[in-house]
């Protein structure tokens, strides 16, 4: 069996982004393996540990993606294919380029992040499935293989969850709760250097062009709660967090 994770490198959510000349300036920003892709990598490694076979990561992006690829290799992935393309490519164009390589690899299944942290888009997984003409299960929280032909998976829906049986090969996208990714170990990092990382130049032209980017500015609401009656204040705080901020 062969398990593939499709990964991307994105700015760390804690970094402060700047806009330079209408474009996001990534200079000085810490770039990391997209957290949702990290779940995908972890799941692929677990599947391989359980069922044997091979684990591969495929990434499409600029040279700098290599760091994220090395992280996946250090976590335990066997080898990597890096489709090198500088500049922005829309998800559909990306999916087409990725599909070519993935079809040639003929894996048992493909895992990728449920959402891409940088574009805040959920398109890549489904677009990849479309390009491959494979089924897709998005927001997967649990997966179990049934031989080489089918998988049983639990995935989130807007208002609940669903358990499905899907014919393989298929594309799965990750959701929080799928797993707790391991840290790469020091020997793993050292070994990653010696693992195969194939670079393939890609010349695709994006169907979408980014003309201008802005950062959403949110000013503080400076809401003060009168604290004379602590019980009432706590109730009011809970109400605001629940109804207005919608965080609890």
């Amino acid at each position, binding site marked *: 069996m062969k398990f593939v994770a499709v990964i991307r490198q994105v700015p760390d959510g804690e970094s402060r982004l700047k806009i330079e000349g209408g474009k996001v300036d990534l200079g000085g920003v810490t770039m990391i393996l997209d957290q949702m892709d990290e779940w995908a990598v972890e799941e692929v490694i677990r599947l391989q540990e359980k069922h044997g076979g091979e684990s591969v990561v495929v990434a499409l992006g600029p040279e700098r993606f290599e760091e994220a690829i090395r992280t996946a290799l250090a976590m335990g992935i066997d080898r990597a294919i890096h489709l090198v393309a500088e500049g922005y490519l829309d998800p559909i164009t990306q999916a087409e380029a990725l599909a070519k390589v993935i079809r040639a690899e003929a894996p048992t299944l493909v895992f990728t992040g449920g959402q891409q942290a940088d574009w805040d888009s959920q398109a890549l997984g489904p677009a990849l499935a479309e390009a491959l003409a494979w089924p897709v299960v998005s927001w997967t929280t649990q997966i179990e293989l049934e031989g080489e032909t089918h998988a049983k998976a639990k995935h989130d829906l807007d208002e609940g969850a669903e358990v499905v049986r899907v014919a393989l090969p298929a594309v799965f996208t990750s959701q929080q709760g799928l797993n707790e990714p391991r840290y*790469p*170990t020091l020997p793993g990092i050292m070994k990653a250097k010696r693992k195969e990382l194939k670079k393939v130049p890609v010349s695709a032209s994006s169907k979408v062009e980014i003309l201008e980017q802005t950062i959403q500015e949110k000013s503080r609401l400076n809401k003060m709660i009168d604290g004379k009656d602590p019980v009432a204040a706590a109730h009011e705080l809970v109400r605001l967090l629940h109804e207005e901020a919608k965080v609890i």
Partner: protein
Amino acid sequence: MAVLTTDQKMVLDMVRAVSREVLWAMAPEYDRTGQYPWPQLKQLAQLGLLGMTTPEAWGGAGLDSVTWALAMEEIAAADPSVAVILSVTSGLPQYMLNRFGSEAQKKKYLVPLAKGEWIGAFSLTEPHAGSDPASLKLSAQKVPGGWELNGLKSWVTSGGQAQVYVVMARGEAGISSFIVEKDTPGLSFGSPEEKMGLHAAHTCELRFEGVFVPEENLLGQEGRGLAQALAGLDSGRIGIAAQAVGMARAAFEIAKQYADERTQFGQKIREFQGVGFKLAEMHTRIAAARALVLEAAAKKDRGERYTLEASTAKLFASEVAVSVTREAVQVLGGYGYHREYRVERYYRDAKVTEIYEGTSEIQKLVIARELYR
């Protein structure tokens, strides 16, 4: 600072993540209870962090000292007690075994230490012999098949917990280093000393009553023990200096954030020059200390003599740690004095960096001597 390679960055990213998620969270609890942090050490061991600089052939990761120092800084920033245990086990016993040990000794002791299955300790100090280790008295008497050790050792980091002790003792040929296993008959341990800080890093007395050490556990050449210990300390001092930088940085970061949030007299306290300048100085001193640490580590990596640089870094970084952690408490005002805000712990933990692995005065002796070498 020099640009890091991809490998170095990846190691540090991993160390930073574990430090934040595993060590930082539990550090106050370990400080309060004074438990030896075995669960934390086990987790670091699984990631290969207990034998960072030991060669891959001997179960380590074969990392360079620069990365090691930066990793030590991260770990110390999260939990200084874990950092000193790590600094000792890798900077002293592993370093000495790798450098002076025989193949058989490396196989038997270095491999489990580097893999983190065991913790190592270094035992030079005695109750009456601290700064002046040449005056140590623990006796090593030649007996058939080996030596018999009698006497006292004190202030042994990880004492009673470590499985392997590198012990300096005096015999007919002068001071030699011996490898002593924890459960050797005749070896017993005092209870952990009640210290100002580093509560989780146990330090205790070792009592030797007719402890038999077999021939094959003599480390390196007989009579070379003091020179070996001092070589070990050169390496260890880089670790302690990095530990000092880590504590200073952690306290500084807390103060920096606090000063941006706390308002008095209608403005953020960082906007008062009295506070802003304090933060500026703290930042500058930490950056300078880190540069000295990396300079010493880089020299070690190049295989050059680095005694001067290691002592310089240790002297400066430990003083920076003490002054920066004190100032951090000050920036937080009354809250700095409260345990919850963590800075008081760094202040308590930092002080010992001016004492162990050679007091600041001893570093000055070393530096003054090295200047005329």
